[in-house]
């Protein structure tokens, strides 16, 4: 038995504030985007099912966290993001995309609008430093914006699943959770320190993300475990988000893909103020996209993985960007960019799994939708 994709990252890895908790639970730790994070605790399928039917907690402290504040913070974010931040009221949160001038995606982010011109921007771990530098580079002299990188001094937990709200209410957060509106966020006192909670997630389930003082993370984590919330790792996070057809930066979206072909038009606001990438994206909207990110479902046993070629009539028409096994469907699923004319639901395609043809069909996204 030999793994076919060796892990090559040898650089020193950052550790979450909860590192000791993960090791105490016997988690399998892996390098990810410069961090050493838990891949799994009890097992990927077990954790996956817990989130679908109960509640799980993920340590997502590796994600980037920037607080932007000042009179001009909203204007700066309007320039940086495709989504118009002026649509967000105070204490609302929203998914957004950050593009470069040619419309390529620099990152997909989650934006919390707090009060008094303060925003919390949650970025992908792999882009945390480059996003910060990119945004800092947009600040012109005389502009009133302060950018505070709070990643290291805070921890971030995602609590996800149908029982997430009642179980979270059993912890120190108490009944507060019930006050949180849909797509809302709020600041609250957690173990004597300020924390921010938003209704959000990356699993296709209802859930919350909480950013808190790193020093309080141990106690809160243990509180969640006492409330019978299941500890979950990056493995289940990946199978859950793939079933929900949520893109993973670096796999399904990157600088060579634009938000329209990735199915992210819903976070592109082209018709008001200018932002970086607007001209390029106006042209894309005008001409239409040549390819689309589609959901592929296998029709036979065999597992499609990222980089497998996608074929139509024997010709390579695309590559799998994310692929794996769906615990909920019991078969392999994946996503791939294919020419627009092959993107319709029901289109039959073939994925080349290391020389073996795996018949697949284009299906409506997502693969899984909560009842």
């Amino acid at each position, binding site marked *: *038995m*030999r*793994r*076919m*994709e060796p892990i090559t990252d040898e650089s020193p890895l950052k550790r979450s504030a909860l590192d000791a908790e993960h090791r105490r639970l016997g988690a*399998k730790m892996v390098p990810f985007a410069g961090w050493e994070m838990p*891949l*799994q605790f009890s*097992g*990927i*399928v*077990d954790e996956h099912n817990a989130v679908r039917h109960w509640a799980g907690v993920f340590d997502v402290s590796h994600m980037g966290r920037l607080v932007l504040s000042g009179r001009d913070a909203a204007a700066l974010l309007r320039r940086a993001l495709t989504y118009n931040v002026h649509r967000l009221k105070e204490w609302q949160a929203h998914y957004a995309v950050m593009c470069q001038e040619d419309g390529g995606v620099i990152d997909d982010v989650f934006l919390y609008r707090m009060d008094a011109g303060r925003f919390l921007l949650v970025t992908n771990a792999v882009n945390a430093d480059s996003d910060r530098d990119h945004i800092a580079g947009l600040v012109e002299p005389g502009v009133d914006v302060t950018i505070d990188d709070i990643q290291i001094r805070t921890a971030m937990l995602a609590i996800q699943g149908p029982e997430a709200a009642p179980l979270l209410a059993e912890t120190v957060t108490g009944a507060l959770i019930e006050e949180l509106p849909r797509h809302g966020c709020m600041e609250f006192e957690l173990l004597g320190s300020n924390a921010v909670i938003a209704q959000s997630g990356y699993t296709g389930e209802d859930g919350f993300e909480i950013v808190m003082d790193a020093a309080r993370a141990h106690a809160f984590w243990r509180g969640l475990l006492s409330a019978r919330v299941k500890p979950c790792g990056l*493995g289940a996070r990946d*199978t859950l988000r793939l079933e929900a057809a949520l893109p993973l930066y670096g796999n399904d979206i990157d600088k060579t893909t634009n938000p329209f072909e990735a199915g992210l038009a819903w976070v592109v606001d082209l018709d008001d103020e200018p932002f970086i990438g607007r001209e390029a994206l106006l042209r894309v909207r005008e001409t239409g996209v040549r390819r689309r990110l589609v959901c592929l479902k296998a029709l036979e*046993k*065999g*597992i499609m*993985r990222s980089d497998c070629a996608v074929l139509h009539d024997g010709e390579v028409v695309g590559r799998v960007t994310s692929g*794996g*096994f769906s*615990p909920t469907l019991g078969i*392999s699923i994946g996503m791939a960019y294919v020419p627009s004319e092959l993107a319709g639901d029901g289109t039959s395609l073939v994925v080349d799994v*290391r020389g*073996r043809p795996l018949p697949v069909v284009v299906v409506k996204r997502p693969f899984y939708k909560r009842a």
Partner: protein
Amino acid sequence: MTSSPKDRRYTKEHEWARLGDGEAMVGITDFAQEQLGDLVYFDLPEPGAQVRQHAKLGEVESVKAVSEIYAPLSGEVIEVNQKAMDSPELVNQDPYGEGWLLKVRPADASEMDSLLSAEDYDALVATAEGGQH
């Protein structure tokens, strides 16, 4: 770490072979299934196929990744464990029993001598586990 069964021999790549009457049963070790995590699919040769010792025997897919499996012995595949193919989690649950993978008619039973004993294999695994921390 519990010790591996002494009625069979092992490869450094974490496969096992147990010699019976004119046939050998082949599988992956407990350490292998533990490392791979939840198993979901096997791609193995059909009965009648010839396999060569230490050459690629097939592939095993876990939820997370794909790995290659190597043949502990040369010979002809005479049976594939259909129960394990239909329920790959059997290999996670019982890698040395119900979760065997295939039966081979050995071309040269003396190849068994070149495989690791249970004691040597356990020592290898202990080193591998130590190296992970």
